[in-house]
């Protein structure tokens, strides 16, 4: 349990956010946020870095394997001493495991042997592979909608649903933390959700696609992106 009054001035200096999916931008720029976060104690800043590094998709290489990703998350969990942050980290892992399983099954993947992903449902999901929601509807009521959106090939709708679920999870934890380190960490994670949604527009997607395409084609030296051979 962190000092409940550790970061009163820091939390009070952070602007609140508008409603998710209504706000066009995060409530504060990353530059200004980082400047404010300089008030964190060194060990707290390190925990926040670990948490963000493990949860931010942008920090993963495109060719990362499941095993590597799970190992990285397990290592991160060991470096997070705050029970609330551990809990929300595991909740996010549960969400990602379930969604990854849905995607794998849609691509025709068969039931993984043993465990799949990380978290409470790592054994439960392979054991209930044929069920549309892996018999997790009571624990994850949003999973049915996620499965339907995936089947309907609506990636933006699915992204919106997942961000909304993550946002609700974080807000639930935020209600119990006003001015401690957990409150700061939750603010930053909510900021990431707003930032991710703000980036979910066509132009950014095109830019990212081009970047990924260039990364994928980097080894093929004799093709340029104008379609002509060198």
């Amino acid at each position: 349990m962190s000092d409940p009054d550790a970061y009163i001035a820091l939390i009070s200096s952070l602007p609140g956010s508008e409603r998710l999916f209504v706000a066009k931008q995060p409530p504060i720029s990353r530059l200004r946020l980082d400047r404010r976060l300089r008030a964190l104690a060194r060990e707290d800043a390190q925990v926040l870095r670990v948490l963000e590094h493990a949860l931010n998709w942008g920090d993963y290489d495109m060719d990362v394997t499941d095993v590597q990703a799970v190992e990285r998350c397990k290592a991160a969990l060991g470096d997070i001493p705050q029970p609330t942050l551990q809990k929300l980290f595991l909740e996010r892992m549960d969400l990602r495991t379930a969604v990854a399983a849905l995607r794998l099954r849609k691509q025709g993947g068969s039931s993984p042997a043993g465990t799949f992903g990380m978290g409470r449902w790592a054994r439960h999901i392979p054991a209930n592979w044929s069920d549309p929601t892996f018999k997790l509807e009571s624990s994850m009521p949003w999973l049915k909608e996620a499965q339907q959106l995936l089947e309907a090939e609506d990636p933006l709708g699915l992204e919106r649903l997942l961000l909304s679920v993550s946002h609700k999870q974080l807000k639930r934890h935020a209600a119990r933390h006003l001015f401690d380190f957990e409150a700061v960490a939750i603010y930053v994670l909510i900021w990431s959700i707003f930032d991710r949604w703000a980036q979910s527009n066509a132009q950014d997607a095109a830019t990212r696609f081009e970047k990924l395409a260039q990364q994928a084609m980097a080894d093929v030296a004799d093709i340029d992106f104008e379609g002509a051979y060198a």
Partner: protein
Amino acid sequence: MNELVLTLGWLGIYAPMALGAASSAIGCAIAGQASIGAMTETEGGYGRFIGVSAFPSTMVIYGIVIMFTLNRDVTPENAGGLFGIGILSGIALMYCGIWQGRACAAAINATKEKPEIFGLSLAPAAIIEGFGVFAFVFALVISAGIS
């Protein structure tokens, strides 16, 4: 034995003042930090924030009044009563001051986004003030029965 009892009596006389001062210091520091943080994010209304952060300072005033009321010659007969009233009223004031500071900090944090809820957001702090007043008034009432 008598010396110990007399010491407890003196402790009881000064406790409301000391604990009240500590609680006001902590409460004002908590709320003050919130007002400093809020000032970096808002364009005006700074005076309001500072005014709210001074709310917990009332606890030390109550403590001083209780101390003066309890202040008398300490004897083995009245030392127990002085100790009981002084310590317990001091503890009550201390909790009220610290938690009032937290309530004020939350109010400041909320009103920086929504200035229109300024009055309502102070309700928890005002209710805590009421509990502090209870501790204060009944300490005065009970102390009248000590010889």
